[in-house]
């Protein structure tokens, strides 16, 4: 294994952050510039949104179900089993729905973007695109950001709902709770601030998923091995960044939102 000096290592990391920032800023600035690749954006939204639906539904349902199952023992000990709807709703909407959906979409789409753009990079298709007078950031990155941000928002709503349904399934079949009571309890526990927090996060997470996937794809070098490396790095970086940003975003929203 080749040893790298700490200075070179630090320089590489700083350069990577700078390049990532430049790519993100350029992609966002492109939203205001012509031409707008609407067909590409809709295509990406279809791949990301419809394509991720099965895994998001399954993850959401079983997360809600296991949440109800795990918390039932503790709640039963305090005689508060009827509050299970509130617990599942608060946990899913504020935290688990956005984070798990973000992680699932990161696993599926950051890797997909990194491998697709990485393959294009190593086969000179990105250079060919530039040579043919097209800005690859505008054509490839901006539609992916728009598609991911908008679709992750709706996927999170779906995930929250099926998570609550999973909790309802466990509550009704295994814990013997009344379904009406569960849903009423869940519904009444949710405040406006919970919804705002739960739906602000996917906007940030969607941006992270798309920009990280595209950044690693466009930085790929070294043939197929380089594409494989970029794909792995994209998933790891996007997942870690989602969890880190989640902490700071939660803290920030708790400060600014009334009633948190």
């Amino acid at each position, binding site marked *: 294994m080749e040893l790298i000096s700490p200075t070179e290592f630090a320089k590489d990391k700083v350069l990577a952050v700078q390049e990532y920032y430049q790519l993100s800023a350029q992609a966002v600035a492109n939203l205001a510039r012509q031409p707008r690749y609407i067909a590409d954006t809709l295509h990406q939204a279809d791949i990301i949104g419809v394509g991720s639906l099965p895994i998001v539904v399954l993850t959401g349902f079983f997360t809600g179900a296991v949440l109800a199952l795990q918390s039932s023992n503790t709640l039963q000990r305090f005689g508060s089993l009827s509050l299970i709807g509130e617990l599942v709703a608060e946990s899913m909407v504020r935290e688990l729905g956005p984070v798990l959906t973000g992680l699932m979409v990161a696993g599926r789409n950051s890797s997909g973007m990194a491998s697709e753009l990485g393959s294009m990079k190593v086969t000179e298709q990105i*250079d*060919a695109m*530039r*040579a043919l*007078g097209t*800005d690859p950031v505008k054509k490839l990155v901006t539609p992916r950001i728009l598609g991911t941000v908008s679709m992750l928002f709706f996927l999170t709503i779906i995930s929250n709902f099926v998570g609550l349904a999973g909790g309802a399934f466990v509550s009704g079949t295994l814990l013997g709770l009344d379904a009406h009571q569960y849903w009423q309890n869940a519904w009444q526990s949710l405040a406006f601030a919970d919804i705002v927090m739960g739906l602000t996060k996917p906007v940030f997470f969607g941006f992270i998923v798309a920009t990280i996937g595209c950044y690693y794809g466009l930085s790929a070098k070294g043939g197929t091995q380089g594409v494989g490396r970029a794909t792995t790095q994209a998933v790891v970086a996007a997942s870690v960044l989602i969890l880190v940003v989640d902490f700071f975003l939660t803290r920030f929203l708790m400060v600014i939102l009334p009633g948190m």
Partner: protein
Amino acid sequence: MSSLSLPVAPPPPPAESRHIAIQFEDVSIGFEGKPVLDGVSFQLLRGESKILLGVAGSGKSTILKLVLGLIRPDGGRIVVLGHEVTEMTEVELFDVRRDIGMVFQESALFDSLTVRENVSYRLSEEHDISSEEIERRVREALRFVELEQTLDMMPAELSGGMRRRVAIARAIVSQPEILLYDSPTGGLDPVTSTTILELIVKQRDVYRSSSLMVTHRLQDALLLATHWFDTKTNQMQHLEPGANINIRTTFMLLRDGKVIFDGPANDLVHSEDPYIREYLS
């Protein structure tokens, strides 16, 4: 090699700037601390074809990428069709690139698009050309490379030679002033290579576009210097000594990032430079 009978081109008159397609002035670039081009200067006149020769890693492909502004030099000045590309932003470069067609080493066709979409890509991006006009020009370009029947095929369904021909069609569809060929025959069998070279000769002699062609195959370069395209027979013909046909093809040889020869084929094959003699042998 010196026994080859090559046409002797008349010495070119001093070029005015409006006659210059590409000009490199003392251009240098390096990657990861290693110099690739070191003070390279040359001119490509409008209508001229220049063949870049040199061993692998001598900086031939880098020159093509510098012309397009895909990479920036560390030093020096590059002027393309009157625009100083070294001073231009990426957005400004898109206008210059509209006048340049490039055939990449491995074709670089967009593998998720059909042949029709690949060839029409540049025209479709311009947004002010009607779909009928695009279709007409795409068919014309594919007819030029004799692949009109592949319109709806995907690049993965084509052979290596066919992909290279589609890449040529994509490069010429907008009738650019300059064409850049990066090892257009690399990895192809001799028969397919000759087909590709015939297309390059046809483009040179029929449309009179300026071109830079990178190759490490000397036989390909000499074929370009010894043949011309006869529009009457629609075939490439051998250029007889003394024939009154100016194919305007010159050679440039790179060694360790420096230009060691820039001139006509005849001067190259009669050079006394030991490295050139060894390279040609």
